[in-house]
């Protein structure tokens, strides 16, 4: 009995070691926020996998927040290696100056406006397999398990991160309820920002929820939105009204 269990433990330990060794040489992009990175299984966002982002409610503002989250990640990936970012969508309503203010220079963006979701997925796969891009972002309504598995394989082959932004199809069903082969799945909602002493809107704030990840538990955090380099930040804890408001300005990570 004990030897069987001991042998099982040994086998598990061996497996964990080999899997760990495989995951070690994969590139990882940390968020720069200690609270977040230590809760992520790889210590950051895996740069050769598929990650999904979705809005928490079907409103347009949460959708904009989810988009900006993806933009921040893509911006940091593009800044790290100077390559271009491919954005595949079916309807083009992004506003380029807004993207630039989140850190993603529109000169590095290559847009593809396809007619249907399956074309968007095919274009994403082409871009991932090509291997000369910093990141590939796609906006779809429908992506089933087979498609996400193909995207994950393509991301591993091309060593390029893939970000899939899922939009709401029907009012009641969260898009993350579908099965997927993604490594991490995020749900973003916009939250009230810190009040400033003067009249004005301060830095935006989001409720960032990691709904599911491979090899770790989910968590929820409230974070400040991306600044103009695409980095998130922890909001300052308001100890006192006046100095807290002053310190709520971007504490760059």
């Amino acid at each position, binding site marked *: 009995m004990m030897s069987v269990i001991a042998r099982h433990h040994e086998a598990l330990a061996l497996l964990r070691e080999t899997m760990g060794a495989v995951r070690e040489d994969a590139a990882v992009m940390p968020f720069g926020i200690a609270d977040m990175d230590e809760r992520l299984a790889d210590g950051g966002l895996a740069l050769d996998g598929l990650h999904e982002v979705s809005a928490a409610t079907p409103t347009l503002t949460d959708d904009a927040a989810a*988009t900006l989250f993806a933009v921040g990640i893509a911006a940091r990936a593009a800044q790290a290696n100077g390559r*271009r970012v491919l954005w595949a969508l079916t309807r083009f*309503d992004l506003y380029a100056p807004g993207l630039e*203010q989140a850190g993603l220079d529109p000169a590095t963006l290559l*847009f593809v406006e396809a007619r249907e979701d399956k074309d968007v997925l095919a274009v994403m796969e082409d871009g991932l397999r090509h291997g*000369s891009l910093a990141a590939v972002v796609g906006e779809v309504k429908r992506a089933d398990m087979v498609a996400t598995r193909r995207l994950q394989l393509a991301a591993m082959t091309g060593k390029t991160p893939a970000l899939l932004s899922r939009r709401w199809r029907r009012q009641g069903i969260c898009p993350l309820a579908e099965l997927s082969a993604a490594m991490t799945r995020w749900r973003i*909602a916009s939250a009230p920002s810190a009040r400033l002493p003067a009249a004005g809107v301060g830095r935006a704030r*989001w409720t960032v929820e990691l709904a599911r990840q491979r090899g770790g538990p989910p968590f929820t955090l409230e974070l400040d939105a991306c600044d103009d380099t695409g980095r998130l930040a922890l909001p300052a804890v308001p100890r006192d009204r006046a100095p807290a408001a002053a310190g709520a300005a971007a504490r760059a990570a």
Partner: protein
Amino acid sequence: MPRGGGWRPGARWAQGDAGRRARIAEEVAALPLHQRPTMQEMGRRSEAAEHPFKRSVPVAQPQPTVVAPIPFAIPMILAEQSGQRQIISAACPAALALGLVPGMAVTQARALIPELDIRPADAETDRIVLDSLTLHAVRHWTPIAAPSGADGIWLDLSGAEHLHGGEDRFCRRLIGFCRRFGFTARVAVAGTPGAAHALARFGRDPVTAIPCGGEAQALAGLPLAALRLAPEALAAAARFGLDRIVDLLPLPRGPLARRLGLASVRRLDEALGRVPEPIVPVVPEETPVTLRRLLEPISTADAIEQVISDLLADMVERLQERGAGARTLVLTLERVDGSEQRVAIGTSRPSRDAAHLARLFHLRIERIDPGEGVETMRLAATRTDQLGATTLGATFAGDDVADVTTLVDQLAGRVGGAALFTAAPVESDVPERAVCRADPLAAPTGWPAWRRPVRLLRRPEPLVNVIALLPDQPPRRFTWRGQLHAVVAGDGPERIHGEWWRRDGEVWAVRDYFRVEDDAGARFWLFRRGDGVDPKTGDLSWYLHGLFG
């Protein structure tokens, strides 16, 4: 009356018939240039000069032939730089009718006609057009064709005129062809290129044809400029009083060569056919074509792909010889039943990469319908561009140069070239006009610095029940798509004026943009039409234009 009577032969006052000289001068002026009597015939040894101190009876100025000015046509001229001033190099018929001639100074022309349309003369483009016309001639009319000067083409019709139904018919078709392109053409058919050149430019009719051996007679009345003489030779000939070709014919060759130069004598011989002048033809470039005839008809996709890769290997060799890269490749498959299928691919940059081109064909392969079987496959590079050797130093050193052009070609093959773009800034304050689509391989710069939302609505949506303090406070609450939002914080206003040069309605229009946050944390970009002070600037209605994250 001067002392002594002042008699001298030819004195004007002694002539009984007053005005005879005026009438003769009138008649002479009415003749075209090449028919006027020479100075020798007029009995003059030099040009008549007016007496500097006496004002003679004004000779009736020879009226230029009155050409009716073309109504409603703005005269256009082409100006070129000649030394320090600009002169007219070409004038349209309306300008010619108004008296402007090539060689006149542009300032004089502008002073004469204020509403003149002056364009710069572009000799380079003219040459390119002439070259392409010559290439067309070589491909369609005769194998030997060359540009002659800067405004003409030589065609060697020996042996080719029967294909076009005879010389007359060919000349008429040629004039009609040029007229369809907007050119006025003059055609001359002669036994020597020099004679044809002279007759086409200085002959009387638009179409002239002279029999072999009749060059001397046909060229007799033409001026010396028709022989393509150098300007110094023309000046020397004018000094000697030689102004028609017929003057040169009886002169002995030795003294003529000494006075006008050996080149002039050679030109005369070439024109008259005594010395041959070959035309150096223009050779058109062949499109590289590779062909594979198959022993057995194939109909499977794998076999077709294999043949495509063989064809591409041959094509890459041909392109390498020329130092060119393919931009457009057309694959033609001939089926057993005689019909043809065509598949074409295009690349955004010239490419000699067989693997990349094979992948582009692979995307189109399901459009091919092999039918009973394909027996011949032909690949032609219809469009090629220069592609020199590419440096591989960077790849060997290990830094990977991220080249997106192959990816762009691949994606263009999948979704079409129009679906690929990058966002480029447009210099405009109005937000919805500030972005445009640009070529995916361009690198635009110059973005506005103020805060902008990430999603812009296609059309701004009206808001109702808005409560705001005028003139520059953000709203306290608004209702959008049936939902009430209570505003907690707001930034603004950012004033954007309309573009008065685009639409009349935007002359006074003003938009005040606010960035507001509601109690749930949602951030909006809304604007109010009007500045709240002046009713002309807007009707104070509120709209939602974009969403921040």
